[in-house]
């Protein structure tokens, strides 16, 4: 069940909201339990067999958390981390390791048939963070219901943002809020959700057509790629990925608001970053935060000198690459990002020269775009083909990738227009906040539902929602990060 499906929009989400808001007045734990049960249905809608992994893992991690809190023995923490990593290792990496450790031998059928459970990378990290936090002294879940709600809460279940137990449970622990507060949050959430849906359906899926077609051409056709095609593929994919994933995050956060919960921000205009360090502070922020807090700092961070810090940075980025997929292209993508971030650190530490923003900004964006080519390519041959064409080093291409040659004009116009938005305009969260506060209208505050600003905002939100929902059609495409 996708966020961008009619069943979710018109049946599941209204049902879940109605159940939660009706029950919260009677019993807060029951309201949470209802959302947890509906979240299980949401998860099982892809494949009910996934529940056979999710539910036992939920019970075991809750029990491990209890043991860590009660005994304070490191053994339970290590057991928990190893068990969670073993699960993700089996489902996501066993085939990759088998092939590489055996020098490319044909893998047995049972390894090739392993289906990757949806959202396993996100769910695993959340549970590891929960166990580590208890070890560090943060409070454990006061009941299984609260723990289950934290893991299962459907907006963040499949593709994040990676929520920490302590952040969500603090809000859960406050109990139900006043009705007016819920209304205000639901209103903000709806605007954010509408923007996210629009970004996904119009921007990401629109650009995805060009990126997919050209990467498929590069993969299937022996002829070299035209430089313009290669650039179009690289730019459209860079934007598609950003708008796809940030749209999912916007929708997840928006739905969270509709339930009265704040989920963490995941994107902060990454293509407006002026350095690689800055880029990673803005791109998939909850994943960066996880690696910083649960890998980089425990390894030693910058406390053990520059040489070790360099090693830790590279390790973290190699793991970031591997987290995205079991393939060497992902590892290389992470490794090169690590080298660039390291260079950035070293430059900041040892050089007195500060480069102007107008130089570092395009350099950062260009580096990210080049690296997305490696990330997107199914293998090295395709990555090399696209990168060679982008640097004008490929032989002349006899054919173009898009059959419809007249489509190049609109393709470039769309890519450039959406690119300018990503480079210059405020992101959805700022936009939603801006709209909600009515700062673009006289009066600057939204006092009551009858306020003209309020009405105009609702009109705009209605228009955005209509266009996004009507555009979905039956061509509902999955979110890219579901693959990770």
């Amino acid at each position, binding site marked *: 069940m996708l966020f961008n499906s009619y069943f979710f929009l018109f049946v599941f989400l209204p049902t879940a909201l109605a159940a939660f808001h009706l029950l919260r007045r009677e019993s807060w734990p029951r309201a949470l339990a209802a959302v947890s049960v509906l979240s299980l249905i949401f998860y099982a809608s892809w494949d009910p067999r996934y529940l056979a992994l999710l539910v036992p893992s939920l019970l075991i991690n809750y029990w491990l958390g209890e043991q860590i809190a009660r005994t304070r023995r490191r053994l339970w923490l290590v057991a928990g981390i190893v068990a969670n990593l073993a699960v993700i290792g089996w489902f996501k990496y066993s085939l990759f390791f088998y092939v590489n450790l055996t020098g490319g031998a044909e893998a047995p059928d049972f390894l090739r048939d392993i289906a990757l459970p949806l959202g396993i990378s996100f769910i695993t990290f959340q549970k590891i963070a929960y166990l580590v936090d208890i070890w560090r002294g943060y409070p454990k879940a006061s009941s299984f219901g609260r723990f289950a709600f934290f893991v299962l809460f459907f907006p963040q279940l499949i593709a994040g943002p990676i929520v920490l137990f302590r952040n969500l449970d603090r809000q859960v622990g406050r109990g139900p809020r006043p009705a007016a507060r819920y209304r205000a949050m639901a209103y903000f959430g709806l605007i954010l959700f509408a923007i996210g849906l629009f970004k996904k359906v119009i921007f990401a899926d629109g650009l995805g057509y060009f990126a997919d077609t050209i990467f498929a051409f590069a993969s299937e056709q022996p002829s070299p790629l035209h430089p313009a095609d290669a650039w179009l593929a690289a730019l459209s994919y860079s934007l598609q990925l950003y708008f796809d994933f940030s749209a999912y995050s916007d929708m997840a956060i928006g739905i969270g608001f509709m339930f009265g919960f704040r989920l963490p921000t995941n994107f902060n205009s990454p293509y407006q970053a002026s350095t690689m360090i800055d880029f990673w502070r803005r791109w998939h922020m909850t994943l960066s935060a996880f690696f910083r807090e649960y890998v980089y700092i425990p390894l030693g961070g910058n406390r053990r000198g520059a040489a070790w810090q360099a090693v830790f940075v590279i390790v973290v980025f190699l793991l970031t690459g591997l987290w995205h997929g079991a393939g060497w292209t992902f590892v290389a993508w992470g490794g090169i990002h690590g080298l660039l971030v390291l260079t950035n650190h070293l430059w900041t530490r040892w050089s007195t020269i500060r480069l102007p923003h107008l130089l570092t900004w395009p350099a950062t964006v260009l580096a990210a775009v080049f690296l997305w080519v490696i990330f997107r390519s199914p293998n090295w041959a395709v990555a090399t083909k696209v990168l060679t064409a982008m640097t004008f080093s490929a032989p002349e291409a006899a054919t173009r990738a898009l059959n419809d040659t007249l489509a190049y004009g609109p393709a470039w116009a769309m890519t450039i227009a959406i690119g300018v938005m990503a480079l210059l305009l405020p992101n959805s969260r700022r936009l939603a906040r801006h709209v909600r506060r009515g700062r673009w209208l006289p009066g600057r505050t939204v006092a009551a539902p009858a306020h003209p600003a309020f009405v105009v905002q609702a009109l705009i939100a209605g228009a955005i929602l*209509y266009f996004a929902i009507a555009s979905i059609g039956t061509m509902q495409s999955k979110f890219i990060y579901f693959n990770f």
Partner: protein
Amino acid sequence: MFLLSLLIGGLVLHLAWSSVMAFLLSSRYVHRMVDVRRWPEEVEARRTAEMVSMYLTHTVAPSPPPATVFFGSSVAYGYPWQEEVTFAARYAAMRPAEHVFNASVIGADLAFIDNAILCGATNAGLKVDKAIIELQVVLSVNSLARITFWKFAPPEPCDETIGRVGHWSFVMRHPLAAGWLPFIWDDKASPKPERGLEVAEVYAGYFISREDYDNLKLEPKLHAQIAAVLNRAKTIAREVYAFPSPIYLPGVREARYEAESVHAYQTAALAGCRAVPGVHCLDTESFYTRRELYWNLTHFNQRGQGVFAEWLAQNVK
């Protein structure tokens, strides 16, 4: 108040967007109908009939006589070429006194031509001087053998209550939003380089074997479909011309299929056509072996489009 404003916002955009899309649709597709396969869902007979009615109501109905309309499948559409290259457009250029329109649908079999395309023309209340019908045989034999390759729903019988359809009302009733843009953007308008025949791999079972054709007793069914198509066409046009879709038979053999079987049902189609009184049946057999005219096994290249247009202009009085 909030929900009401939300609804009004959506409704206002729907009205404005639909008006723009309806205007663009009506102004961009005059001589050849839009490719209905751009629909995001399965191509349904009823919706196609509405779109044909919409196209013909807007173009052919107000046109002064004499009017000629092509009804058919991808060959008559001119797949994969831009409109000006197609034989329908070249035929029009050779007959400046006639007003020529093309209401063909890529991938349509005979049942679809009858229950969707000609059905649309009936609903538009069309009366034209000439209808030139492509008898799509290969796909029809496939469908009769219950093999389908396309995203086409099995056609329901023609619904004659649809009537004339206006662009605005049609677009208003179908809120596709950005889904209308692929209709507005005619991807078939791109100029493509001319090329010779390429025998690509075809779907397994695409050409029915002689054994299946005989065992399933497809010939009488094929004749019945042809009769239905042509009899409906006769209610629309004063004169009806029909031709079996040309096909490059030696290529069928190259693709490891039974060319004799294909030849047999092409011939049967012509016989089926000749069994319907008052129809001019054109024999396309002379095109079955001319490799230089084909783009793939079942479609002409640009040269083929030109040669076929000349042949049509000589045979259609």
